[in-house]
């Protein structure tokens, strides 16, 4: 079996760290936008404005998909150790 991955990880021990922080920051960014959307949708509900509610829902839905997709790429620092066996 190739030990490419393992030697890569050894050469760049900070990589998982950076990835993890990057993903978490992206997620927080996405969530902030979603909160903003939700807030404006609620505000517009008072005015019975359906268009904005639909637009913000679409935006929020797409952002949620993006965040699910991002989660798939979460690095697991323990992975190398499990797979070795």
């Amino acid at each position: 079996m190739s030990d490419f991955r393992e030697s890569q990880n050894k050469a760049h021990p900070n990589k998982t760290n950076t990835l993890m922080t990057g993903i978490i920051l992206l997620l927080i960014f996405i969530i902030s936008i979603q909160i903003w959307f939700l807030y404006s949708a609620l505000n517009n509900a008072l005015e019975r404005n359906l268009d904005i509610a639909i637009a913000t829902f679409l935006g929020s839905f797409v952002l949620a998909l993006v965040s699910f997709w991002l989660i798939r790429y979460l690095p697991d620092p323990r992975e190398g150790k499990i797979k070795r066996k």
Partner: protein
Amino acid sequence: MKEKNQEIFSETWKDDFPIQQQEAVHVSRREFAKFLGLLSGTLALGNAGIIIKSILFPSQKLKGEHFVCNQNEVPAGGMKQFELQLDKTIPYILIHLKDGQWRAFEQKCTHLSCAVRYVPEMDKIQCPCHNGYFDARSGVVLQGPPPRPLPRLDVILKDGKVFVAEMKNKT
């Protein structure tokens, strides 16, 4: 030591039933990130909920004409409070402007729902809570924190009686 580590990491059930209390309360960054993803899904659901609610349960509209009072009960420059019983009770004010026109607005300020009142000296509607002012003719915000104009009703005069109805042409 290496052997031992391998053993611990390969048994995933130990993640869910840790032996040490320290491990039980520990939240890894992975878990935190997954939680953020969950939160993001929930927010999207919340947005969907708003749409569903506004399609399935639209707020009830005033049907037909609603009798308020006799025309001579409100002098020019005067104001009268009345209530409409829709899906909830909503307070309204009827205004007899000094030039003889009539207007009806919801009494709840669009800022934080204080009761607004008509001030004949200024010919404006005032919200005393944070000094918001609305135009007495259109309900448009003139000054202060309110974000939206006051919801308005049509006023219909018929042989000395005052009726209100849902606005026909929203402008």
